[in-house]
């Protein structure tokens, strides 16, 4: 039994000192720790903190409509890998998502369903509209069945133009959205011409009277006034 191996009572350390050794363990030398310095606390407004968290971890909705969804899949997949920017992992259920990318032409039959999917997402929620069709109807604007842009139905935070936009453009759009969220900006309030409403609440006119036998008063409907569209 050599006394060399015995801890010296004279140099007795606290447990913490013993564990920390000479200084900060270099396993924990993250940038964040360096930025904090020796103090493990930061002082910020809770709102700013929440905005920063929201922007840095966005759950996208797995939502494909038309051509743009192919480029959207490329954005999620190898090479572009949207996940690198803290916004990957498409969720199949709207209940688990907070960002919806609207990738494609919206037609009359689909708009009520899209509105429903949007309504099912929990607040706060954000919308990236991808491609010309979701801005104005794009190349199909003159179609008898085409809704002239996503903003006719749901509010939109970021528009990414293109037909279809390249994955780089979509990434830029998502990055811009993150920037806006972390600065606490929310979606602009827009007038949405097309709303889901009960058939019984529609103002009576020729068309409503004609359909009165077919549609139940409680049924949710969307009424398209094509003439008022841009």
């Amino acid at each position: 039994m050599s006394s060399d191996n015995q801890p010296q009572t004279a140099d007795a350390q606290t447990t913490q000192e013993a564990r920390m050794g000479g200084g900060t363990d270099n396993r924990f030398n993250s940038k964040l720790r360096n930025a904090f310095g020796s103090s493990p606390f930061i002082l910020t407004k809770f709102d700013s903190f929440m905005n920063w968290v929201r922007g840095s971890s966005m759950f996208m909705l797995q939502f494909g409509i038309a051509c743009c969804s192919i480029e959207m899949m490329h954005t999620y997949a190898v090479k572009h890998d949207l996940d690198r920017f803290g916004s990957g992992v498409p969720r199949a259920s709207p209940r688990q998502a907070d960002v919806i990318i609207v990738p494609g032409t919206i037609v009359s039959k689909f708009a009520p369903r899209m509105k429903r999917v949007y309504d099912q997402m929990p607040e706060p929620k954000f919308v990236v509209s991808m491609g010309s069709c979701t801005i104005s109807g794009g190349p199909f604007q003159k179609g008898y069945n085409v809704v002239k842009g996503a903003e006719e139905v749901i509010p939109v935070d970021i528009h990414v133009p293109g037909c279809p936009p390249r994955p780089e453009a979509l990434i830029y759009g998502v990055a811009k959205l993150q920037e806006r969220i972390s600065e606490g900006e929310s979606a602009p309030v827009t007038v949405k011409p097309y709303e889901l409403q009960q058939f019984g609440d529609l103002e009576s006119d020729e068309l409503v009277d004609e359909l009165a036998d077919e549609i139940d008063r409680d049924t949710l409907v969307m009424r398209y006034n094509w003439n008022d569209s841009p």
Partner: protein
Amino acid sequence: MSLERPTDRTDTVGVTEEGLDYDALADLLGDRVVSREQHHHTEAFTIRPDEVQDVLFALRDQAGFDHCSNVTAQEYENRFETIYHLKKYADPTQELSVVVPTSKDNPVSESAEPVYRTADWHEREAYDLVGIQYEGHPDMRRILLPETWKGHPMGLDYNQEKPQIVTLEAHANPLEDDEHDAGADTMYLNIGPHHPATHGVLHIETVLDGEQVAHVEPDIGYLHRCEEQMAQQGTYRHEIMPYPDRWDYVSAGILNEWAYARTAEELTDLDVPDYAQVIRTMSAELCRIAAHMLAVGTFALDVYGEFTATFMYAFRDREVVENILEDLTGQRLMFNYLRLGGVAWDLPEPREAFFEKIRDFLDGLPHKLDEYHDLLTSNEIFQLRCANTGVLDAETAKQYGATGPVARASGVDYDIRRDDPYGYYPELDWDVVTAEEGDNYARVLCRLQEVEESARIIDQCVDLLEDWPEDDREIQSNVPRTLRPDDDAEIYRAVEGAKGELGIYIRSDGTDKPARFKIRSPAFSNLQTLPELAVGEYVPDLIASLASLDIVLGEVDR
């Protein structure tokens, strides 16, 4: 399996050494033929609207027209007209159009559904968009537009400014006759239109008995963006070509553009230089590879339910193809590269670098395909999952007008590239891939093998292009600035798209825009077979069958 088609010319009416004898066909039908007229490539027999089934039964059973390729409906100033474009699976160059005019005040025509099952959806579309009624049709209601739509938009007097009302509930209450009710032992289930496994915005109404599918009905129209109207509003020369890219948008753009190019070129009698044909053939096959890669990747996504391995492999390879196509056309997805009479521009400079890029891709492809076979087709779990599920036999496939890999995997040896040749395909050495089983497994295997064949074609095209003399690189023939086909010329031509026979019917009226532009979408016909594949199977097999049909909603709904 080879380019030489077996000669099995039986003694069907009208078949001669020189081709189709239309007089013999007219004799067969006797005085049921009211009049005859000449369309491009074929003759059209006009018949009475109450003798449709008689005539079509005779043509199918005695003259061998087993493929109802397309049904076109249109409105003239003084009448409605339905055209049945008939072909033969054994030889699609033998064509016949059957024209059924009906009066304006009573647009009722006999349904062809008992003769050709595929007419079911085609006639519903004709009713929906044009407004012709079909007597004896099992389910005469709208197909693309919502139930509550007013008017028929492809009709002449349709006013698209009028408001419309669309309901949120589609056709049925999901909770009606539910298992929660006493007495009912089935459950109604909506799949889609927002669902990861429907490959877009498809709605499948399903009735389940336990975990088995008792009834399934696809509900389409969630992406009906008026492609035919758009084409009818564009001029032939430049304004129509961008739209085909957006029918089958899974990178199959050039295949679709070729459908329009082939139809319009034959309608206006334009030549295409050989050099341009080789470029077209090469780029079209690159598109086919990209499209099949996505089909395989999303199939794996659906049956394995993961967003990782196979899907990522497929997208890795698609990126390579898209880079090559971007070098050539300037676009990743919507190429707009073909022009009537040729292509937009020559290969990118430096040519050697471009060729090397393609060669690198082709050299790496066998190894990559081995990876797919390791991941998918030689995986026992995958085999258990896919073999003998979703079986489609050859006769049913023909009845539904199925084409492309779906038909070929069911033993229907039908490929328009070989049977009704166009482009540079006849000069090249390649095989048509077929399988006999007709199950989900065979369809996926067929696509993977077609990728190999496409690679063979591209390889030969690159050889040809490398050695092409520099002073003979004509990319476009001489095309008039404004194209005005003859008044009342009618044509129906098809090419082999990624999903099958992609055809276009054009009727011209002497102006520079088509009077009627009808798209025959392969995915539309293929999707019709879904109930045959899925009823009686388990729900997961329904999803696998749907994925193996490889539909694109942009093309189904147009």
